C-alpha cells in the first residue's frame, strides 16, 4: 500500500466513533480532518485528528447536521472523502448525493440503497422478492373479517392486530386462537378510533419472546459480498441497545448459514456496497424475520472485529476507494466470545435520565482482551446537547462465561466520577442468572431488572472512610494533583487556533 487511498478524510461526527475513524485513518496513513461544534472545542476527537475545524454552535442542526457547511469544510481543506460515522447524517441520502456533486467520495453506501432501506414498505417488497423472510401478515389494512381470518391462517397463530396509525401499544391486540379473532379485531378498531381517530387495523404474525439478531455484511465494487456472522443485541432499554454480544447463544451452525445467506441476498438485492447490517427478529423456534437494514457502521461493530480479527472501518475506507475488500475476510471465522457494554452518561437509578457534568476522575480498565472505544477523558465536560454515549467497553474471551466474568471485572475497574454512568446496572444484568443462562430476549430488562434495588448501605461507610482521609489531606481535586482531572497542556497553552474558521 504505497499509494494512499485518499488524500485526506473529513470525519463528520464526534465522540467515540469519530475517534474510532481517526484511528483507522492513522493506520492507513491518511490525514484526517475533525469537525467540532463550539461545545466540543476541547473534545478528544478534535484533539486527535491531524487537523480540526470549528463547524458551528452546539445545536446539531447548525453543526454536525449542517450538510453544506461540512461539504464546504471538506473542499476548503482539500479532503477527497468523508466518513459519516453513525447517527447525525449517516443515513441521509442527501449526504452521498451532495458529496458526489462536490467530487468527494462518501464512505458508505449509495443514496439509492439508503433510500430503499429507509422506506419500510419498499424494503419489505424488495426483501420478499429476494427470498428474505419478512414478518408474515397483511401488507395493507383489512376491510372485512374474512381477510383477517385468511391472513391469520396464513401467518399462523398467535397473531397481532395493529392500528395503522398506531404506536405505544394502543389498538394492539394479541390473538392466540381463531375464536378470539373477531372480538379482537373489533376491540382493536374501537381502541384505534379512540386513540388516533382512525380505526384502520391490520394483522401480522406475533413473535413471542423475540431475540434481536443482526448480521454484519460487507460488499465491495468488485462483486464480492460477504457476511461476518451475527451479533445479538436483545438487551435494550427504551428500545436502545445497551449490551451486545457475539456469537449468539440462539444460533446453530445451520441457522447461522441460513441467516447469513439471507443477509447477503438482502445486500445484493438492494445494490448495497460498503459495510451494512441486516437486522432480524428471531423467534423461539429459530424462525427469523427481516426487520431493517442499517446502512452505516454500527455502534456495536467492535464485537464482530474482536471475534473475526477484522477492522471494519479500514475496510469501509478501502471499499470506498474502489479497492477489493481484504483477502483475509474471505475465510473469516468466529473465534471466542465478545461482549460490548455501552457506557452512557445516564442514571440507571432514575429511569436512565441523562447525566451531565465534568468528568472529575477517569481510569480505564486494562488487560488482555479488553478494548475501549472512548470519546472522553478526565476533564471532559459532558453536555446535554448530544447522544449521551461516552464510550464502549468491549471484552474478548475464549467462552461466553469467561467473557461475562471479564466484562463484570472491567466494568468495576472502569472508574468514572463526576457524572452518572450505568456501569453498576450493567454489572447486575451480566450477573443475572437469566443472562448467564442465555435467556436474552428483547423484554429482558423490563422483565428481570424492573424490581432491581441497589443496596448501597455496605458501600456508604467504605466510601465515607476513604472520603474522610481525602478530606483530612485537605484535598480539593486540584491540590491533590489528580492526574486525570488536571487540564491538559492543550487547555492551558493559551489562545491558539488550528487552521481557520469556516465563514458563517
Amino acid at each position, binding site marked *: 500500500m504505497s499509494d494512499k487511498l485518499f488524500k485526506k478524510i473529513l470525519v463528520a461526527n464526534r465522540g467515540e466513533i469519530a475517534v474510532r475513524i481517526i484511528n483507522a485513518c492513522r493506520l492507513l496513513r491518511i490525514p484526517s480532518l475533525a469537525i467540532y461544534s463550539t461545545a466540543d472545542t476541547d473534545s478528544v476527537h478534535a484533539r486527535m485528528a491531524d487537523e480540526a475545524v470549528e463547524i458551528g454552535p452546539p445545536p446539531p442542526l447548525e453543526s454536525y447536521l449542517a450538510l453544506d457547511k461540512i461539504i464546504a469544510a471538506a473542499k476548503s481543506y482539500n479532503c477527497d472523502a468523508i466518513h459519516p460515522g453513525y447517527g447525525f447524517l449517516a443515513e441521509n441520502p442527501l449526504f452521498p448525493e451532495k458529496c458526489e456533486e462536490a467530487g468527494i467520495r462518501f464512505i458508505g453506501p449509495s443514496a439509492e440503497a439508503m433510500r430503499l432501506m429507509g422506506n419500510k414498505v419498499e424494503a419489505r417488497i424488495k426483501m420478499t422478492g429476494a427470498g428474505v423472510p419478512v414478518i408474515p401478515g397483511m401488507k395493507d389494512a383489512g376491510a372485512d373479517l374474512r381477510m383477517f381470518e385468511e391472513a391469520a391462517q396464513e401467518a399462523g397463530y398467535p397473531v397481532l392486530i395493529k392500528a395503522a396509525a398506531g404506536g405505544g401499544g394502543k389498538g394492539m391486540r394479541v390473538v392466540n386462537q381463531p375464536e378470539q379473532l373477531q372480538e379482537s379485531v373489533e376491540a382493536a378498531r374501537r381502541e384505534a378510533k379512540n386513540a388516533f381517530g382512525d380505526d384502520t387495523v391490520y394483522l401480522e404474525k406475533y413473535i413471542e419472546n423475540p431475540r434481536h439478531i443482526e448480521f454484519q455484511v460487507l460488499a465491495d465494487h468488485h462483486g464480492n459480498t460477504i457476511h461476518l456472522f451475527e451479533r445479538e443485541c436483545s438487551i435494550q432499554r427504551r428500545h436502545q441497545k445497551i449490551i451486545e454480544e457475539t456469537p449468539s447463544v440462539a444460533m446453530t451452525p445451520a441457522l447461522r448459514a441460513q441467516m447469513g445467506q439471507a443477509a447477503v441476498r438482502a445486500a445484493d438485492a438492494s445494490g448495497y456496497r460498503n459495510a451494512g447490517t441486516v437486522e432480524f427478529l428471531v423467534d423461539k423456534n429459530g424462525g427469523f424475520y427481516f426487520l431493517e437494514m442499517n446502512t452505516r457502521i454500527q455502534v456495536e461493530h467492535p464485537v464482530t472485529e474482536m471475534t473475526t480479527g477484522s477492522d471494519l472501518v479500514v475496510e469501509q475506507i478501502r471499499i470506498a476507494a474502489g479497492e477489493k475488500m481484504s483477502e483475509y475476510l474471505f475465510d473469516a471465522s468466529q473465534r471466542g466470545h465478545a461482549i460490548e457494554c455501552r457506557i452512557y452518561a445516564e442514571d440507571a437509578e432514575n429511569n436512565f435520565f441523562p447525566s451531565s457534568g465534568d468528568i472529575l*476522575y477517569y481510569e480505564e480498565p486494562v488487560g488482555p482482551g479488553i478494548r475501549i472505544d472512548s470519546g472522553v477523558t478526565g476533564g471532559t465536560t459532558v453536555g446535554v446537547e448530544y447522544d449521551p454515549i461516552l464510550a464502549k467497553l468491549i471484552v474478548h474471551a475464549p467462552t461466553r462465561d469467561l467473557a461475562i466474568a471479564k466484562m463484570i471485572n472491567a466494568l468495576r475497574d472502569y472508574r468514572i*466520577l463526576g457524572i452518572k*454512568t450505568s456501569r453498576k446496572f450493567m454489572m447486575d444484568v451480566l450477573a443475572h442468572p437469566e443472562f448467564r443462562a442465555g435467556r436474552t430476549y428483547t423484554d429482558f430488562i423490563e422483565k428481570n431488572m424492573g424490581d432491581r434495588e441497589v443496596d448501597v448501605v455496605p458501600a456508604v461507610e467504605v466510601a*465515607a472512610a476513604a472520603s474522610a482521609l481525602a478530606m483530612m489531606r485537605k484535598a480539593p481535586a486540584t491540590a491533590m494533583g489528580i492526574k486525570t482531572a488536571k487540564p491538559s497542556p492543550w487547555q492551558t497553552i493559551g489562545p491558539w487556533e488550528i487552521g481557520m474558521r469556516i465563514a458563517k
Partner: protein
Amino acid sequence: MIQQLLYQDTALDASVEPNNHGAEVSIGDSKYVVKPLAPGKYSVEMNGIRHTVCCVIKDGRVHVDVEGVLLELTIPSEDDDMAGGDAGMVGEKDKIYAPMPGKVVKLLVGEGDEVTEKQPLVIVEAMKMENQVNSAANGTVKKINFSDGDQVDTDTPIIELEITE
C-alpha cells in the same frame, strides 16, 4: 480528628487516626484501614476485605466510586459557597438560593415551619440533576418565593428565613 459527612440524611462521623501508611478511620463501631494508592484512589480494608475506592472532592461534595457503586457524600461545612449541601452564603443564612439556575422540583417546607440547621428545605433540578438545598441555620420559614415547577435563577432567594439563634 473527626470528619463529618452526610449521605442523604444520614450523618457519618468519621474519626481519622493518621499513621505512617494512611489512616485508621472509625465510623460507628466499624474500623477501616485506609491507604492512599494514587491521587484520588484509596484502599479501604475491614476484616481482611479490601475495597478499591476512588473519590474526588468538588464543591462541598465527595464523588465516590466503590467498585461500580456511585455515591455522593456531602461535606456539611460552614464555608461552602458552592453547589449542594448548605447553599446559604456566609452572612446571609436567612436567604436560601438555588445552587445554579434550574427548576424547583419540590419544596420540603411551608411558610411558618420551624427548621433546624442542615434540614433539607428544597430540591432544585439543574443540569438534569437534583440538588438538595439545606438550611444553614435554625429558624422559621418567613417567605417562599417560588412553587414546585418554577424556574429559578441564583439571584432571587427561594426561601427566606427568620433566624433564631
